[in-house]
């Protein structure tokens, strides 16, 4: 493609803004996200509280910042767990093949056949709620999709000439996997990562909306939206801002993924 990718540019800017916003939330919020103020209950947006206040007089901007921060952290951690293990499993299966490959892939198919949010819900019922348990539950469920993606790429490259010649030259398998093949798979993986990130954000938001695995005192975007649902008429801003943040976060990364696919010519 000759022209500059607009998707990449717009998505990049949007994502940068959202990342700055959420990252800021990890370190600084204008008020304590849990501090309550009786006179400010259900207060509308104002200079002091740009996003308004909720039913207990808590600053919605601060809560959104912190909630976005925690959503981002969880999504990234889930992505990391899913990606690292998916990469290892996919690479080894794709490169070596054989019975182990068949077995692992069948297992992946079985897990992938099942909706991840539902599975995570059941897993959390067993291991109990909490941030790390959410990461663990969602992360494990993200492994199969990455493993399949990586395996597919490795299958494509393992019999190429450059791999064969490397093998003839006595290069170790690990080196072939990570130095020779892996870099070629990046465009596909990157595209997969953007989709995975969005699924992780959606998964976390859905689960906290259902009230599963969250601690209600710590702000999370999904749980805020659940709480806000009763106040749609008098305090619509309570719903609007957290919803906008989730949507923009996903949109930005989605556009980047689009741009990556456009530039690298990867099928979506």
């Amino acid at each position, binding site marked *: 493609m000759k022209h500059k990718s607009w998707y990449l540019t717009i998505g990049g800017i949007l994502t940068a803004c959202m990342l700055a916003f959420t990252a800021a939330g990890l370190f600084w919020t204008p008020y304590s996200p849990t501090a309550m103020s009786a006179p400010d209950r259900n207060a509308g947006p104002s200079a002091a509280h740009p996003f308004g206040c909720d039913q207990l007089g808590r600053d919605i901007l601060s809560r959104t910042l912190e909630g976005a921060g925690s959503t981002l952290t969880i999504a990234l951690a889930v992505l990391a767990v899913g990606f690292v293990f998916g990469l290892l499993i996919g690479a080894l299966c794709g490169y070596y093949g054989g019975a182990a490959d068949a077995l692992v892939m069948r297992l992946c198919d079985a897990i992938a056949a099942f909706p991840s949010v539902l599975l995570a819900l059941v897993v959390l019922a067993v291991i109990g709620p909490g941030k790390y348990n959410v990461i663990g539950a969602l992360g494990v469920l993200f492994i199969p999709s990455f493993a399949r993606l990586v395996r597919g790429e490795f299958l494509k490259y393992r019999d190429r000439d450059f791999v064969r010649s490397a093998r003839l030259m006595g290069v170790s398998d690990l080196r072939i996997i990570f130095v020779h093949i892996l870099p070629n798979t990046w465009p596909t993986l990157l595209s997969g990562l953007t989709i995975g990130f969005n699924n992780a954000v959606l998964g976390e938001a*859905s689960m906290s909306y259902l009230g599963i695995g969250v601690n209600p005192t710590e702000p999370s975007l999904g749980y805020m*939206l659940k709480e806000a649902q009763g106040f749609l008429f008098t305090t619509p801003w309570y719903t609007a801002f957290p919803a906008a943040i989730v949507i*923009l976060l996903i949109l930005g990364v989605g556009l980047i993924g689009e741009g990556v696919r456009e530039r690298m010519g990867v099928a979506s």
Partner: protein
Amino acid sequence: MGKALLKRLALLIGTLLLVSVLAFIAFSVIPGDPTASVLGIEATDEQVAAFRARQGLDLPVWQRYWAWLTAFVRGDFGQSFKFDMPVRALLATRAQVTLVLAAAAFVLIVAISLPLGLLAARRGGGVLDKALDWLVTVTTQITMSVPNFVLGIGLMYLFALVLHWFEPEFVPLEDGLWPHLRFMVFPALAVALPKSAMTVKLLRGSILGELGQDYIRTAYSKGNSRGSALRRHVLRNAMIPVVTFLAMAIGDIMAGSIVVEQVFGIPGLGRILISSIGNRDYPVVQAVVVMVASVVVGCNFLADLLYRVMDPRIERT
């Protein structure tokens, strides 16, 4: 082909068995059981022990699994701890509700995305084309970015509370199929819209990809019009990835239905699943998990069949 199908079928049963084992073991290791709801808030320890023995809760795990599995296959899903009624009776109407919702969402996805996908794949070249390209991508990206429950809240607010197009109370099937579906359209839309956006995008990409293939040029050179080329050759091939995608999406549609049920207060599998998890009513949870898994795996199997019919090129292994 028969052998391959048998293999798929074995895989399907294996997957379901695996799910059932996991579901059963998982809930057998959690401490505590819901005796209070059956025996009342002031039950004594002796009553609790007697209840446990009666329910077979003091047997080893594998014995309970075997008993549960054999009963399950016969259609006896056990007894709900909390409601003191057969799980099957408890879940029957709820499963119907969720299945209708999921099916409605599926139909909507197909109904929305097929015409839009075809429309978006029209390509004449030039500026207009570029603009269309943009429009499609941006619209689909935005739609895909809205979580289904947020969309549900929005639809509920707009159509039920502001415009009063429908009442925000679930209408059961007994009140008539039409009112039931009329209510279900809105939650189904919340589930369907994000998935439709993805399908439109996929279908469009797939059609455009096929249109660039050599055989299409051949078809054109033979004097086929664009429309007939599309109908005769492209659509069939272009649909293959879409069918795959839709089959894969069934799991997500089920999950989406369960989440959106909470927004619209629909008494389907979602509500009973979540409350049963909280109430440790494990016979119900196990039954829901295995039921959802059966639907998802079953649909994938059907898609696989369809796939083979549509594309004879698929290897027969």
